[in-house]
């Protein structure tokens, strides 16, 4: 599973363009990783601002 750091995200859509399972829903100012994510990490590799990660850094309760 991958996670978007929304503070860094510019909603540019490069991640969507490389996503094979079409698992990213991107609107003008919001982004959601969907259940179909296969954890291929291509989105992490291409993000212009490095805004996607596969590491969980904190848990909000």
């Amino acid at each position, binding site marked *: 599973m991958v996670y978007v750091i929304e503070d860094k995200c510019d909603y540019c859509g490069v991640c969507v363009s*490389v996503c094979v399972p079409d698992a990213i829903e991107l609107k003008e100012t919001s982004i959601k990783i969907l259940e179909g994510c296969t954890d291929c990490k291509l989105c992490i*590799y291409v993000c*212009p601002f490095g805004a996607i990660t596969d590491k969980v850094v904190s848990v909000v309760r």
Partner: protein
Amino acid sequence: MKEEYDIIIVGGGPGGSTSAYYSATYGVKVILLDKRRDIGFPIRCAEGVGEAGLKEFLKPDPKWAVNKISAFRLVAPDGNNVTLKNKEFGYILQRRIFDYLLAEKAAEKGAHIATRTYVNGLIVENGFVKGVTAEYLGKNFSLRSKIVIGADGIESRIAKWCGLKSHIPLRDIETCAQVTLSSEKIDSNFSDFYFGEKIAPGGYAWIFPKNEYIGNVGVGISGIYSKNKPPIYYLDEFIERHFPDASVLTRIAGGIPCAPPLKKIVMNGLMLVGDAANQANPITGGGIINAMKAGRIAGKIAAEAVMSGDVSEKMLKKYQEQWDESVGEINKRCYRMKKVIFKFSDKSLNKLAEVLNNTPPEKLTLKEVFIKALKQHPSLILDAINVFK
């Protein structure tokens, strides 16, 4: 908004607006949908266009063609530059105004436009695309049509939903970061292109001036190199080096498909236009004029198809054929050249700059640059000649 249209166009960039303009000219019922609240904002683009291509559509107006470029500087990794002069290289656009104008013109021809409308699915019946599902202010609705034109950009989901494109491979994507900045170091006379492994691996950094003190400064790198270092870090270093005291007015991310032409860009009731169809130039990344050229063909063919009552792939294929024979052929050649050019080592680039600077200035054209660059690959020299005919 009607319940049904002849043509639904998804995406209000230059490709979508041009498709809308040309199809609406025939009197068919057209609607253009965009997920953003504003046509023309945000703009993820270096905003450079070629003069010849632009003039096919519009007479340049200083309100949106804000700077005329008559010289390029190609900068090698060691800092030596090659200056190319051509009175008709092109313009730097203010796309906030340009895109809005294109949409206005389409609306004047009778196209409807709806923003803040997010297309979230295709309606497919009996192997024909028959419309879209979309969401506005949280409410889902269906909108039917005879043809859907997918002009939804690099993030195109329409291209995926209809099976014509699965994704863009890392080697075919340029991932980019750009700022628009104000600095006294901006020189409005030149568009600059910087090359080098440490500057922009698999791509280039650009300085595209809008006037004497404002310019778009950006870096695009190949997706195969961005894993270790995203483009924003390359950009920060570039700005630190060249514009350390600049004021930044815009900071933006984006990507460009620098891919070979898609095998198919049409199916029953559907056409793809622009970045959604991978139609940007694979070397320069220029996509605005290509999207407009595609939109012009697609708009006309779509309207003809609607009026003839035949929206099958066989009918819509005329669009693909006209595209393939014109810009598609150029893109194919450019992709072949790109595979070689962006693999040049810094040493080879420095050497190439030296060779070019020993060429008499009147012989220094883009064609000469490519021919000299591809000297080790004779089969590609023909591509260079054909592209720059």
